[in-house]
């Protein structure tokens, strides 16, 4: 293999590793933009992974598997939304509980399908497709144009989310709610409805991200398949300063760091692998420091993040 091809393949796997995280980051951004910090990302991903896997095995229909996965994530988000939006419960605690709950549910579902295998139809549907001509471009061809449907879907969703948040009126409403729900409410915006919608869509995306791991990466069920990807996503939401386009960059960069980790082990370079595993987190901390130092208002978290909104509060 020549070096160009090596780089291409490296990037290909980086993008694949980054994709489930990309789904989770974009889902998390939607949730945080309406002012809700959801630490249940990991739990929703696991629920999506388990149900997606089960439906894929049961029906052999890839589309149904994706919908079920998203639905499972959204169901988790619905619990979260009911507690934090309607009952105005503490967001951090609720999110943590959702993660614990989701891990348990996925383990339970997984125990029923531990002997099953992903059917051929699904495996084919989720395997990389080479786009004629474009996939022949050196490096980029492998990195972007020889990918599976999830990768493209992730890219498209991130771009759509950016457009939605920054160019549409609904996005303007959403940002207003995250910054100052009182102002949005006084403007006649239905705060509760927008919160629910965005939290549920966020959960749907997290579920999809989880299912990518369980249905496209693997052929048999593996417990705790996300292995902390949801937590990384929570950190990378900050890394991407709540911008879905930067989330693409963040997710792929993270995929690369992970890939580098494996590669380095292969080259037998004497760097402890734990150190490399730390890299994305260190990068996030560095970004946090930069955000705090630059004090640019546009890069700050939504101002009302983590606060419950109650109209009649004095």
């Amino acid at each position, binding site marked *: 293999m020549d070096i160009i091809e090596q780089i291409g393949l490296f990037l290909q796997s980086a993008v694949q590793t980054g994709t489930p995280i990309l789904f989770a980051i974009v889902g998390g951004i939607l949730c945080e933009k309406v002012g809700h910090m959801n630490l249940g990302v990991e739990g929703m991903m696991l629920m999506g992974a388990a149900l997606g896997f089960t439906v894929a095995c049961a029906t052999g229909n890839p589309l149904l598997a994706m919908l079920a996965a998203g639905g499972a994530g959204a169901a988790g988000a619905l619990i979260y939304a009911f507690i934090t939006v309607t009952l105005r419960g503490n967001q951090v605690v609720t999110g943590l509980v959702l993660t614990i709950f989701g891990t348990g549910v996925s383990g339970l579902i997984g125990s029923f399908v531990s002997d099953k295998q992903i059917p051929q139809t699904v495996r084919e549907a989720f395997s990389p497709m080479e786009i004629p001509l474009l996939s022949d471009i050196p490096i980029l061809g492998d990195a972007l144009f020889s990918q599976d449907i999830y990768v493209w879907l992730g890219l498209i969703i991130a771009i759509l989310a950016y457009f939605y948040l920054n*160019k*549409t*009126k609904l*996005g*303007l*409403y959403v*940002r*207003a709610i995250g*910054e*100052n729900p*009182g*102002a*949005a*409410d*006084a*403007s*006649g*915006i*239905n705060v509760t409805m927008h919160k629910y919608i965005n939290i549920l869509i966020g959960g749907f995306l997290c579920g999809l991200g989880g299912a990518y791991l369980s249905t496209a990466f693997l052929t048999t069920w593996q417990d705790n398949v996300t292995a902390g990807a949801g937590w990384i996503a929570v950190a990378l939401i900050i890394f991407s300063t709540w911008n879905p386009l930067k989330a693409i960059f963040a997710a792929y960069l993270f995929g690369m760091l992970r890939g580098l980790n494996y590669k380095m082990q292969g080259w037998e370079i004497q760097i402890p692998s734990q150190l490399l595993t730390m890299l994305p987190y260190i990068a996030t901390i560095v970004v946090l420091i930069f955000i705090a130092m630059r004090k640019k*208002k*546009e890069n*700050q978290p939504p*101002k009302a993040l983590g606060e419950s909104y109650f*109209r*009649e509060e*004095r």
Partner: protein
Amino acid sequence: MSQPYITLNNITKSFDSVYANKDISIDVCKGEILALLGENGSGKSTLVNMLSGIYKPDSGTITIDGKEMSFSSPADAIKAGIGMVHQHFKLVDVMTASENIVLGHIKHLTTSKKRMAHHVEKLNKKYGLNVEPDKKIYNMSVSEKQAVEIMKVFYRGANVLILDEPTAVLTPQEITALFDILRKMKQQGCTIIIITHKMAEVMEISDRVTVLRKGECIGTVKTSETTPQQLTEMMVGKAVELEIERPKCCDYTSKPLLTVNSITKTNTDGVNVLNNVSFNLYGGEILGVAGIAGSGQKELCEIIAGLVKATTGSITFDGEVITGLSPRAIIKKGISMSFVPEDRLGMGLVSGMSITNNVILKSYNRNPGPFIDSKFAKKLAEQIVNDFNIYTPSVNYTVKKLSGGNIQKVLLGREIWLSPKVLITAYPVRGLDIGASYNIYHLLNEQKKKGVAVLFIGEDLDVLKSISDRLMVIHDGEIVDIVDPDSVTKEDIGLMMVGEHIRKESAQ
């Protein structure tokens, strides 16, 4: 009188068993300006919040143009043509003026900067406003923000405008401009309800006045048929003495209690927010500080209290240099600060805690051991509640649920109870009604008579002139002059506040 356009009938609303509004009935006509007058906590804001759909009344009806209304959200009120400019602006800081204005009322799917700016310009022309469409809210002055709020209401085509204390934060010129806009609206047939407790403004702008006291409607009178004195009596419930006394009890030949020596403070942007500030503060005097908001008052307080370190310069208390000491050490020496920021709660009190816990916050280290002496704490809280006439269901009530005036009394009460030797107080009467304000002036004079050195940072020039023994005027972080308040006029002080040294000019 023509048919009333808005009728509020027997409106009642309570929070945690405290009546905010009790059986209130008022009506307003088209093309009329009604002033709602009342002390803090009398229920003015609660009443208009029900009219704008923020709160739901417990009982009573709202009728607009003959139709009975039931608002379940602000969106309903907006649909009924009611627009409200809140006391605490409801704006999204990181968005531009035009984004804030169209918020909630965009007809197109996508947002276009050009289209939004176009709307803003059109409204600017129509009402003589001056809003920059692309300016971010966080870059705006208070009056600019208010203009955005008013334009928001216009944009929605409201014909009822409610203003909750619109002039509290404006300069005299800005108030004049605002009143011009209101008169223009009135001519176009709009109905305007304005909340204020500045008597002069009520007399100037309103057609009729409704007075509220402790959540009840005392009466509605025609502005042309009443006097400020009568209104004040209705508001407070008794005749009020509108004089501030100034006992002389300071010995200026003695050593000053606090000496501030060439303090300079450079902020993170490299700007000198305080520049070579030096003055003496004597026991038994009130040194008033006048200046435009943001001229370095906050920094000065924080440096004396030890919360912020000065870049250069030193502060001496009773012959001992205190610069560099921790806030706790400075409190121990007897320097106390009560700073009432614009939002009242930002500094000094923990809004989510009870009165008891807040008053004990600064004295917890007086009782030994790790436990709080809860009996003592409760007694202290009850004493402060009694001494300062704080209106609360109990001492265990959460501070943020109190009305603004009562919150300030808790803060000042705690500071005075510590029996400080130096009392720094900034805007202690901000947002307070007449009765409560005079209470606080009286308290400060009491402290002065005890030999306490009081640094009084104020806003109202009339008050500063009558309460201060000496008056220090600051501008842009520098002391313009320290004058005898009786030897200057209000206009002189105003000029000094923008940096003109009148004394030197008159001497030449």
